C-alpha cells in the first residue's frame, strides 16, 4: 500500500504486446483476482438489476414482471417529502463532520504516536485506541446512551463542575445530534484510522529527519516539513475514497440513536430507505426505498469522479 503510494510506478509500454499474451504471462495473478471480481459482480453489479423496481409499484409476490409500472411516481413522492430533503442534508452534514473529525483526529494521533520513543507506551496506546473499532455499534450506542443520559456521568460532571445549571439533553436535542455522532465515531475509529498513517510515517526515510535536524529543525519543524509532506499522498488517496463515500454517513449509529425528538436531524438516506422501503407502505414501500437508494448511489458516483477530477487537476495521486 505505502510502497505504491510512495514511488510512482512508471509502466512505459516499450512495444505493443498482445494483451492475451500479457494475460497468459500473469495467469497466476489473474486467477487470484477471479474471486474478487466474482464478489464485486455478484454483490455490487448484479443487484443493480433491482433498480428497475424503482419505476414500479413493486410487490414481491407479483415480481418485476407482474408489478405495475408507474414511471417516476416513486421519485416524485420521495422528493415531495420534507423528511427526504432533511435526510439528504443530514447525510452530507454528518459525513462531512465525520470526514473532518475522523481525518484530523487520526492524523493527530498518528503524529503523536510517531513522536513517542518509548515502544511499550506506543504499543499500549495504539492497542487501546483501536480496540473500540471491534465493538459492535449496538454496544457503543448502548454505552453512549448511558454516558450521555440526563443523569449520566457526563452530565453529572458538568453539573458538579458548575459548567451548566441543568443537565444537557444530549440524546433528545436535535442541534447536538450531528456532533454527538461525530464524537462517538471518533472515539470508535480513531485508533483504527490512524494505523494507515502510522505505517506511512514509518516508511518515511529516516535520513530526511537526520538532514532536517542537522539543518537545525526542531521537533515541531520536522513534523511540519518532513512528516506531513510524507503522508500527503496517502492523505489524498484516502480523501478521494472518502469523498466517494460521502453519501454514506453510516446507518447503524443513526438508526440506533434515532428517536422522535431528533428524527429531523438524525435520519440519513439509508435509514429513510429502510423506514419507507422495508418498513413502509405495503404497496409502494419497496420501490420508494429503491428509489432513495438509487438517488444516493448516483450522487455518490458523481462525487467520486468529481473528487478524482479535481485531484488530477491538482496533479496529485489519483485513484482511477
Amino acid at each position: 500500500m505505502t510502497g505504491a503510494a510512495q514511488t510512482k510506478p512508471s509502466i512505459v509500454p516499450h512495444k505493443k504486446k498482445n494483451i492475451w499474451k500479457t494475460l497468459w504471462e500473469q495467469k497466476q495473478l489473474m486467477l487470484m483476482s477471479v474471486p474478487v471480481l466474482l464478489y464485486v459482480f455478484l454483490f455490487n453489479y448484479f443487484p443493480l438489476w433491482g433498480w428497475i423496481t424503482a419505476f414500479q409499484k413493486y410487490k414481491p409476490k407479483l415480481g418485476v414482471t407482474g408489478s405495475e409500472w408507474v414511471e417516476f411516481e416513486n421519485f416524485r413522492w420521495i422528493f415531495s417529502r420534507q423528511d427526504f430533503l432533511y435526510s439528504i442534508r443530514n447525510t452530507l452534514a454528518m459525513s462531512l463532520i465525520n470526514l473532518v473529525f475522523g481525518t484530523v483526529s487520526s492524523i493527530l494521533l498518528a503524529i503523536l504516536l510517531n513522536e513517542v520513543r518509548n515502544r511499550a507506551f506506543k504499543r499500549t496506546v495504539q492497542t487501546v485506541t483501536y480496540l473500540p473499532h471491534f465493538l459492535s455499534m449496538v454496544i457503543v450506542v448502548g454505552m453512549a446512551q448511558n454516558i450521555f443520559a440526563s443523569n449520566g456521568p457526563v452530565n453529572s460532571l458538568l453539573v458538579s463542575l458548575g459548567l451548566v445549571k441543568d443537565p444537557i439533553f444530549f440524546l433528545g436535542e436535535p442541534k447536538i445530534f450531528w456532533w454527538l455522532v461525530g464524537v462517538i465515531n471518533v472515539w470508535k475509529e480513531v485508533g483504527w484510522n490512524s494505523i494507515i498513517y502510522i505505517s506511512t510515517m514509518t516508511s518515511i526515510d529516516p535520513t530526511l529527519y537526520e538532514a532536517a535536524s542537522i539543518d537545525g529543525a526542531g521537533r515541531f519543524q520536522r513534523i511540519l516539513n518532513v512528516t506531513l509532506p510524507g503522508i500527503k499522498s496517502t492523505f489524498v488517496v484516502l480523501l478521494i475514497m472518502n469523498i466517494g463515500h460521502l453519501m454514506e454517513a453510516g446507518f447503524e449509529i443513526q438508526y440506533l440513536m434515532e428517536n422522535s425528538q431528533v428524527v429531523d436531524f438524525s435520519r440519513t438516506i439509508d435509514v429513510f430507505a429502510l423506514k419507507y422501503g422495508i418498513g413502509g407502505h405495503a404497496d409502494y414501500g419497496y420501490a420508494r426505498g429503491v428509489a432513495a437508494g438509487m438517488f444516493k448511489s448516483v450522487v455518490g458516483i458523481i462525487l467520486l469522479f468529481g473528487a478524482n477530477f479535481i485531484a488530477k487537476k491538482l496533479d496529485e495521486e489519483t485513484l482511477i
Partner: protein
Amino acid sequence: MRKILAGILAMVMIFSLCSMAVADDKNVITVTVFRGDPGDQPTDDNRIYKMIEEEFGIKFEIEFLAGDLDETLGTKIAGEDYPDLFDGGNSAEKIISAGALIDLLPYITEEKTPNLYNHIKDLLPQLVNENGELFIIPNYGINYNDQIQNYCNGPAFFIQKQVLEWGNYPEIKTLNEYFDLIERFIAANPTDENGTPYTGFAILCEGWRHFCLINPVQHLMGRPNDGEVLIDVTTDEYKTETFIDKPYAKAYYKKLNEEYKKGLISKDTFVMNFDQYIAALSSGTVLGMFDQTWDFGSATQALETAGMYKNTFLALPLVYDSEYVDGKEIEEHYLNGSVPNKDRGFGISVNCEYPERLIDLFENLLSDRWQKILQWGIEGEDYYVENGRMLMTEEQYKQRSDAAWKRANTAIAIWESAPKKQGTQDDGNAWAHSDQPENYFNLMSDYDKAFLAAYGKKTPAQFFNAPLQIAPYGEAWQIDKTPIQDDYNDYLAIQDAQLPKIIMSADDAEFDANWDAFVAEIAPSAQIYTDFMQAEVLKLVEQATK
C-alpha cells in the same frame, strides 16, 4: 488414533441417519414459527412441547421479534421468506396485504373441525374481510360462558401501591387527584431505600407503543379504547373525531407540562426504548404511568419475583376534573365488553406444506383437555382438583409467573398466538388459572390482600365501573388503516414529534405556541384520518345491524 476418530465419526453419522429415518417413519414435522413480539425461547426439554410432539408429531422452531416489527415483516415479505405459522403482531395487515397468508375458511368445517367451527361461527361476519376470507383466528377475546374479570388488563393510569398506602388509601378518581398524590409522595420521599431518585410519571413513546403518549385523552373523556378517535355512541350518526387536536386534549398535555416543570416527568422518558422502560419499571422507581397492563407484564412479574409487592402497580380509571371540561362530570368507562382480537394471532403462510396438519393441531389444542393442559398444566403436577374445583398450591401458582420455569414447563410461545378458550368452563372453573377466583384471592401476596382490604375491595377490577356493552362497531382501533397508510403514518409521526416538545415547553407562552403549531401541522392528515374512520365506523355499524 486418527482411524479410531474416523470410525467414531462414521458411526455418529450412521446413527444420525438412522434416527432421521425413524423420525421420518413417525412423520414428525418441524414447523417454523414467527411471533410478532419479543419472547423467551422454550427449553429443549420443555415437557408440554414434548407432549405435543408425541401426540401430533409436530415440533416447533420459534423465531421471536427482535428489533422493529414493520422492518422485520418487510424483510420477510421482500424475500417471501415466510414461516409456516406467521403471527404478524401489531402489523398483521401488512402480511395479509402482501398475500403471505392462506384463507383458513375452506379448512374449517362443522364436520372436520367442530371445535374451531364453533369457536368462530357467531363472530364470522365481523372477522372475515370483504372477500369473505379469514386469514387469522383471533388469539384473544373469544369468551365461553361468563367472562371473569379480576383485574383490568387493558388501558389505565397506573400508580405504585406504596404511594396509595402512604397517602392512607385515598380515592383517586381524577387527573388532578392523581398527580397531586404523586407530587406529595415525592416531596416526602425523594428517593427509594437505595437512594435512587423516584420518577413521578413515565411516558413510553417508542414505536407502536406510543399509545402511552397519544391515547389517554379518550379515556379521560370517559370512553373505552377506540384507538385515536373519539366516537359519540349516543346517536345513530356515530360522529367520529380525532381527539388529539381538540381543546380538551390540550388540558391533559398542559397538565403534563406542569408536572414536567415540577420535575415529575424526566426528559429521558421521551427517548427511552421499550427495554429501558421495562427496566425502569422493574427497578421500582417509577411511580406512575399511562399504559396497558399486558404491555408491562414482564416488569410486574420481575417485581413480584423480587418480592417488591409495594412497588407493583394498581390500575386506576381516571377522568378529567370537571374544571377541564366546562364543569361536566365525566363517568369513566375504561372496561369494555370483550371483542375478538381481529387479525391478531397465528395465520398459516402460503409457504407452509402441511396446512391441514396445523389446522388439525389447532382443532385439537382447542379441545377441553388440551386447553386445560395449556392454561393450567398437568393435573397432579401443576394443579389439583378438590370438590370439582381446580386449585393450585401457593408454589404451583407462583411458579407460573416465573420466567425461567415457564420456559421449561409451558407452551406459552405457541399458546399466546393460538386460538384459545377464555371465560369459564362448563363446570364453572375458569379457563385461565389466574382468573380462577379461589386462586386469585387465596394466593395473592399478603401485601396485596392487606392493600385490597384497606380499600374494602375484593379485586382490583372493582376500582372500575362494570364493562360497557360493546358498541356495534367493536373497538375502532381494530380498523385496518392500510388504505390511507401514508397519511395515517404522517398523522402519527407528527404526534410523536410534537407532543413531547409540547410537554417539555419551558413556559406558558411557549406551550401555547407549540400547541397551536401542532394543531395547524396535524390538521390536514387528521382530516383525512377522520373522514376515513367515520366511513369505516358507519360501515361496521351497518354490517352489525344487518
